[in-house]
Each structure stands twice: as structure tokens, then as C-alpha cells.
């Protein structure tokens, strides 16, 4: 990506975030039952969606890597996995912060948070496989296998946790959305998507450079 284009993109990302924050703090009215803290919702939910998008990308990239053996897919899988963990962490931190004044406790074994915790663990394990792999040739293949299994597991995780949580106490999480809230949420979705793509692109560039560097070093040492 040319420098001019990437600066333009960065500016766009920045502006969209400003717009999102403006909508969240200045535009949308305070929700009746939960008060001010409910505004976390507008970032909490897009973060969750972003995490899912990331996990899906890991899935597709992993399949493609196993099919084509092209490193670009492996770089994509790794970058997306990191972002998935990052956004998942945001969900897992903002969730309890939101919960504390509302439910009185930081954590409840509530289906969405619990499922996200399990997903988060799977992709943290993915990143660990990356770090603890011994060979640069095999690790991408192992990670790809994990990337496929983890995503296939997602519906199973949600289904089983929802079944289980029905046995426990369940706090309803459906918030009725009036138009200003809907628009704010959509703006935040857009801002998060752009930010996600921005981070992904930068992470990919970094990994590409790192790979090129390693190749160069190997060439030099071969001479």
C-alpha cells in the first residue's frame, strides 16, 4: 500500500472513531434502566463482532494455507488471530466493567461472556502454538489445523453454553433499541470495521517485512 493511500486510510479511521465517540457521548440519549454505564454497549458489541470476524478470517486463511502452502495465507491467519484475541480481550474486560454496577458482581457465568471466554482461550492457545513451535516449516501447518478446529467449535461452544446457562441464572441481554441508539451502534460498527482493517493491514505489513528479512538473512548465511 502506497504511503499516501495508507495515510489517507489512517485519517479515515481516525475520523470514523471520532464520529463514533461523538455519537456515543454526545448524541445518543442515556438509557433509562441502566444509566450512563450502558454506553459501554456501543463499543462492547462491535468489539465482539470484530472478534468473530477475526476468527472467521483465521478459519478461511488456515484452509487456504493448507491448500496452497502460500505464506501470505499464514501471515493473514496469524494477524487475524492476534486481532481476535485483542478484540476478545476488550469484550471480556468491558463486559465485567459494565456488569459490576448493573448486576452487582464483576462476573456471572452468563452465556455470551462465558462463550467468549472459551473462544478467547482457544485462540490464545493458537498464539501459543505459534510461539512454542520448533520449526518454521511445520508451525504454520499446525496452527492452520488449530485455526480450522477452533472455528468449527464456535457454534458448538455457543450451543452448549446456552443450554448450560439456562440451568443457571440467566440475565436477559436484549436491549430494546430506539432509533438514536441504532444509529449510534451502526456508526460504531463502521468505525470498528475500519479500525480492524487498519490494524490488520499494519500487522500484515509487519509480518511480510519480517518474513522477507528472515529470507534475506538465510540467503546471506548461505553464501
Amino acid at each position: 500500500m502506497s504511503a499516501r493511500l495508507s495515510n489517507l486510510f489512517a485519517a479515515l479511521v481516525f475520523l470514523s472513531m471520532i464520529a463514533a465517540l461523538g455519537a456515543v457521548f454526545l448524541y445518543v440519549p442515556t438509557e433509562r434502566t441502566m444509566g450512563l454505564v450502558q454506553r459501554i454497549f456501543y463499543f462492547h458489541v462491535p468489539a465482539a463482532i470484530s472478534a468473530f470476524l477475526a476468527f472467521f478470517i483465521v478459519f478461511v486463511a488456515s484452509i487456504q494455507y493448507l491448500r496452497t502452502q502460500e505464506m501470505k495465507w499464514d501471515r493473514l491467519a496469524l494477524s487475524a488471530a492476534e486481532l481476535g484475541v485483542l478484540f476478545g480481550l476488550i469484550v471480556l474486560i468491558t463486559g465485567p466493567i459494565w456488569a459490576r454496577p448493573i448486576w452487582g458482581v464483576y462476573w456471572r457465568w452468563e452465556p455470551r461472556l462465558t462463550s467468549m471466554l472459551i473462544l478467547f482461550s482457544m485462540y490464545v492457545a493458537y498464539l501459543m502454538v505459534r510461539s512454542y513451535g520448533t520449526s518454521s516449516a511445520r508451525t504454520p501447518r499446525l496452527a492452520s489445523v488449530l485455526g480450522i478446529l477452533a472455528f468449527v467449535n464456535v457454534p458448538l461452544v455457543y450451543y452448549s453454553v446456552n443450554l448450560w446457562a439456562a440451568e443457571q441464572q440467566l440475565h436477559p441481554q436484549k436491549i430494546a433499541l430506539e432509533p438514536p441508539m441504532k444509529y449510534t451502534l451502526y456508526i460504531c460498527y463502521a468505525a470498528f470495521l475500519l479500525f480492524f482493517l487498519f490494524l490488520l493491514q499494519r500487522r500484515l505489513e509487519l509480518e511480510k517485512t519480517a518474513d522477507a528479512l528472515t529470507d534475506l538473512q538465510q540467503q546471506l548465511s548461505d553464501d
Partner: protein
Amino acid sequence: MESTFSYLFAGYAAIWILFFAYLLRLRRREKDLRQELELLRDQVAKKQ
């Protein structure tokens, strides 16, 4: 209802801290890579 503002603040602070931490990490690694690239260029130049 007593103000839940401090929680709101904590929530958004956490989000931005995480974002910036990740961005800083990216920048640091980019810098390290660039340094290594320079070292490599010097090595290549010396060889020739």
C-alpha cells in the same frame, strides 16, 4: 440512580489502553525490523 460514570470511564479507558498498547507494540516491532534491515544492508555492503 447514583452515577455509574466511573465505570463508564473505566470501560472506555480500558478499550483505549488496549488499542494503544497494541499499536505501540506494532510500532516497536516495526522499528526493530527496520534496524535489523539496516544491519543487514551494512553486512551486504561490506561483503561487496
